[in-house]
């Protein structure tokens, strides 16, 4: 039995942008072990379903989450303060894989897992066999950029031009791919962003991993509430985002139709 349920003390919970918060949880070092791309599921009092949240960083006894206030659950979390306790389960799901030249792309709050991937990959892979990892990100507007993460982001665009270059990260990704020549692209963000960038990647025959998001029931693959259709070597089958994902090879994911609405 691996411990997968924790009651963690909040070290900090602070605003880092419009409706954006970073929560720092104290977790048992060596017992809670995570990889970039994995998530945890947070208990919200009086709610039936736990809220799956991506891990933004994890070192030693410190687990950081980046979350956007979207509904009652995340609103509750945003009101917690230092010393409060959070009941969470996890880590769950698979993780991103780094190769030699990695282009990591985050859109909106989707920056969290790719930021973790960059922090975890830097130092391990960097410089070895000419490996290099860059992180680029797109946001709607300046207010939606998590200020804490700015130093780690190599390129930023905003839809309204209030910070960095103006326009969609999808357009800049294309020229960035030409220039940086990655052999691996990892994306987390809205479905439309992942769809368009993975199309560019696959046209150029670059490996591409995308992190899918779904409302979840059990978080452990039991309830089949969060499945997507994937193409597994020609066979169309269901995959539970919580267990077989959240990271999928972009070649296997269908973006069309209501399956991903």
């Amino acid at each position, binding site marked *: *039995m*691996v*411990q*997968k*349920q924790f009651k963690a003390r909040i070290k900090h919970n602070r605003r880092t942008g419009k409706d954006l918060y970073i929560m720092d949880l104290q977790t048992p070092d060596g017992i809670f072990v995570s990889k970039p791309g994995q998530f945890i599921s947070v*208990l919200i009092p009086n*709610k*039936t*379903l*736990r809220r799956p949240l991506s891990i933004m960083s994890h070192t030693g006894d410190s687990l950081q989450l980046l979350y956007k206030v979207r509904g009652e659950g995340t609103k509750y979390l945003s009101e917690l303060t230092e010393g409060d306790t959070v009941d969470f*389960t996890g880590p769950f799901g698979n993780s991103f894989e780094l190769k030699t030249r990695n282009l990591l792309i985050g859109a909106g709050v989707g920056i969290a897992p790719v930021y973790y991937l960059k922090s975890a990959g830097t130092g391990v892979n960097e410089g070895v066999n000419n490996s290099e990892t860059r992180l680029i990100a797109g946001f709607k507007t300046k207010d939606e950029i998590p200020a804490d993460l700015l130093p780690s982001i190599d390129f930023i665009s905003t839809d309204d031009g209030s910070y960095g270059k103006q326009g969609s990260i999808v357009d800049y990704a294309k020229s960035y791919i030409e220039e940086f020549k990655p052999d691996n692209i990892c994306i987390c963000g809205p479905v439309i962003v992942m769809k368009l960038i993975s199309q560019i990647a696959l046209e150029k025959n670059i490996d591409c991993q995308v992190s899918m998001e*779904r*409302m*979840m*029931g*059990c*978080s*452990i*693959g*039991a*309830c*089949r*509430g*969060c*499945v*997507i259709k994937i193409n597994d070597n020609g066979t169309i*089958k*269901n995959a539970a985002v919580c267990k077989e994902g959240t990271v999928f090879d972009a070649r296997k994911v269908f973006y069309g139709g*209501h*399956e*991903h*609405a």
Partner: protein
Amino acid sequence: MPDMRVNKGKLQLKNPIMTASGTYGYNLEYEDFTDLTTLGAIVTKAITLEPRNGNPWQRIIETDCGMVNSIGLENVGIERFLKEKLPVLIKRKIDFAVNIAGSTLDEYTTLAKKCEDNSIKIIELNVSCPNVQHGCLEFGVDENTLGSLVKSVRSVFSGCLIVKLTPNVTSIEKLGLACQAAGADAVSAINTLKGTGIKLTFENGKFKKEQVTGGYSGRGIKPAALSAVMRLSKVLNIPIIGMGGIYSLNDVFEFFAAGADAVQIGTANFTHPDIAGKIVSELYSFMENNGFNTLDELKGALRNE
């Protein structure tokens, strides 16, 4: 040392705490949260003759006091279950019941026969899934149809035969009686209530709607479940396994008070994946600390109040 055993005809369990079909996977899904060997029985996800992909997205939605699901019986099918999932349950000494669902009487009977041939001790007939177009629920709403189904399954299955009843009927008692007359060893109640969850948000001048129609489960259905169990217990001699909104030992007591002999925990597993094992140990401690030697003594005390 309290004796938590359920000993009612063919319904033999080491304790009355089971987990409900569809919420607990096939075998080891919850092993990081609960010692599965301590549970009275886990009930597998519904198994059909052929594998099923289930319904398209969106399959679940949270509601006030619960959730609505429309999974549509996604499962690996009986052959893969027998080959891959069953050996694990046996090897790990986990007590279990196999939930089976069909779209015809023959399918149910074939499934039950395969269970019999594989020495499966308990099956639960799913005649009440609200999320598939054919079969299943159609069998669960008419007492004559249900009676014939149970009779046919009974003729090929010698173990403990449980029938899971739907609350989406006028008289659950009539259905329970039909099961009893046809040779069922127990009934379980209730499956989900028909429900629709709608979630609206207003953004950039437009409404965005999420909607799932299917089975409503969770805390909110407990009074409906207690009522069904109470009505069934007034007319049936066979044991009743109660379920619907159980989140605590006290909820279990409420079901005992209403007439249940055992219980199943369902949606609460999503909220608290450790809950089933926790309730088993709480029940044990409660009985030990308060001088209840058997489950019947405890139930007696609950029913006489």
